């Protein structure tokens, strides 16, 4: 096991990549970078259990796989359960002297559909049982794989193919499910939100999730140029903007009790939030919000973001 995660370019270059070229994720997709950064945090032998979704489909189109570490996909809503089984079987076999590795980390990965919605029960169960694994949700804000349908992770005002912006409805009306907060309420040792632009923060947190004794949970923001109708080259800058506007604040929660605002968000707290419009204008899926009739709706979204931000700052003890 490597003692420290790779966060400098020199160390990163020495690390074996866990995902290879030739995968068929869309140009500019955030997810392969999310996986690359996860790979920088690994401690040693690792098994990945992947829910159905873009990442699963586009990295393992038979007869090709982009994965260089052991990887399994079973279904959409069950990667946390599959991970429970894999981990406990390894533990049992090791205790009986039937298993050669001293330690194997098990990571379950799901998209926002597989985590916020259909796989939520399986995640909650696995967290309650306390398996020593890490669950990572890569959140691209909708069911992108099936054609951009709304999910529990879709932002208010976001247009999807099941939350159209029409003459009377301005995209999704409901709030985004606060998944990381709900997960933290399970009182598990470690929960963190991350996104790729702050890559050091990402890698360090992922390693903390692995190091935690018991379940660790990572909520990774992951832009989707195809679904969001954003420029492919802006994936990382949009991700950064999600932090700067408070739409995806970065924080950690220890044992469900200790809330810590991460460096990048602390700097945002010092500088003040950028208006959500700056984020919205980078993506076609929010274009309708700039129509005059939705100005009030846009304002309400901003108020909600401001409110949530203040609550978070208070929880984290940030003035």
């Amino acid at each position, binding site marked *: 096991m490597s003692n420290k995660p790779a966060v400098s370019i020199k160390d990163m270059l020495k690390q074996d990549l866990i995902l290879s070229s030739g995968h068929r994720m869309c140009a500019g997709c955030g997810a392969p970078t999310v996986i690359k950064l996860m790979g920088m945090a690994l401690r*040693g*032998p*690792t*098994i990945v*259990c992947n829910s159905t979704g873009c990442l*699963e*489909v586009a990295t*393992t*189109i*038979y*007869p090709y*796989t982009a*994965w*260089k*570490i*052991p*990887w*399994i*996909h*079973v*279904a959409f*809503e*069950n990667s*946390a*359960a*599959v*991970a*429970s*089984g*894999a*981990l*406990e*079987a*390894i*533990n*049992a*076999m090791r*205790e*009986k002297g*039937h*298993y*050669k*590795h001293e330690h*194997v980390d098990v990571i379950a990965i799901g998209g926002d559909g597989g985590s916020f919605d259909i796989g939520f*029960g*399986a995640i*909650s*169960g*696995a967290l*309650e*049982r306390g398996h020593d694994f890490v669950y990572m949700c890569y959140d691209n804000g909708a069911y992108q794989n099936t054609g951009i349908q709304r999910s529990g992770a879709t932002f208010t005002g976001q247009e999807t193919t099941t939350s159209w912006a029409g003459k009377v409805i301005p995209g999704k009306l409901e709030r985004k499910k606060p998944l990381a907060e709900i997960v933290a309420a399970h009182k598990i040792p470690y929960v963190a939100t991350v996104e790729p632009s702050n890559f050091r923060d990402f890698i360090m947190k992922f390693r903390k999730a692995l190091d935690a004794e018991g379940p660790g949970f990572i909520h990774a923001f992951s832009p989707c140029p195809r679904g969001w109708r954003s420029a492919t080259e802006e994936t990382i800058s949009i991700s950064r903007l999600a932090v700067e506007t408070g739409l995806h604040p970065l924080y950690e929660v220890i044992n469900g009790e200790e809330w810590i605002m991460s460096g990048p968000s602390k700097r945002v707290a010092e500088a003040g939030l950028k208006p959500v419009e700056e984020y919205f204008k980078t993506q076609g899926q929010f274009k309708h919000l700039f129509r005059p009739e939705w100005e009030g709706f846009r304002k309400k979204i901003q108020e909600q973001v401001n409110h949530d931000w203040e609550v978070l700052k208070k929880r984290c003890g940030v003035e």
Partner: protein
Amino acid sequence: MSVPKNKITVEGLTGDAAIAYALKQADLDVLAAYPITPQTIIVEDYQHFAANGEVKAHVIPVESEHSAMSACVGASAVGGRVATASASAGLALMWEILYCAASMRMPIVFTVANRALSAPINIHNDHSDGMGMRDSGFIQLYCQSSQEAYDTTIMAFKIAENHDVLLPVMVGIDGFILSHNVERVEMLPDDVVSKFLGVRKPFIALDPDKPITMGPLALTDYYFEFKEQQDKAIMGAPKVYKEVEKEFADLTGRKYGLFETHKTNDADIIIIAMSTMGGTAKVVADAMREKGDKVGVIRLKMFRPFPAKEIAKVLGKAKAVAVFEKAMSFGAATHPLALEVRTALYDAEERPMVVDFVVGLGGRDVTPMTFVEGIEKTKKYIAKGKAPMYETLGVRK
């Protein structure tokens, strides 16, 4: 070498308890299960073994049956010996992952206390759950006694984990009728079971030293080939079953075959039934023979793969086959067991009449008189030369 009598433990056990004991001796790595009546005793007993340090498995008390089967797939994928238990609605909730378990070639043993499906919700026995999963790719073995449940559960691991099979096996017992009924069970010594099963040697596993990808996307160009593999594997299972059973019989003197026959050689009417109905049917056949009716019985144990050729061979000489089955395939020409029997007979030179009686749904008692009624009807149909495709017996009409 047969195990000497003084090494055998004899106890009165329910079907569930017999299965729990077999699972204990199988030295599982993982048991993942969710409570559902009438399977609960299996997991309760097993958890009791765990609490007393009598098993080394990690028991995963999952939050749903869907996760139970999913955890089993994960555990099996890394090379563990794995089991779960369920019934009825729980089994139905697993449905998606049943197909994954079979297609991913995971040798999981799945013990089921067969129970009716909702609605209305009903906790009693029929075979709707087992029949609902009949196309999932699981091998299906239905048991008549607690002894058979014990024996079959042990053998199931050896069949499933055989590299020519690599398929999950369902072991079915009738809910309440067997799951909660105490019978005399002979149990092998632990070391004999350990030697019989050995430690699972995975054919291929998720291993950090040799990273593979399991469960990828396979489209029009490859999917069909994997289904061909799966079909070949399940159709080859009876051969392995027979080998395993022979080895087991050498230890215990007990064997069941793909199906049991009772006085079928000269029978005019052969009853075909599964699980505990088999016992009742045999008693009825004996009684009817005393009155001059030549009745025989096939008690089918292996429903999947369906032993069509062997069954056709036994049935061919009879005038009629009276199928008694505890499930409906709504809207089908007839019901699951009769569909198989009719298909098996289609190519036979001599084709007996097939009469299908759906009985016992939702735990409605299937008494000896139910069988007598069916046999009397069958006799009339033989005389007429014509029978309905199916009918229900024991329902108020």
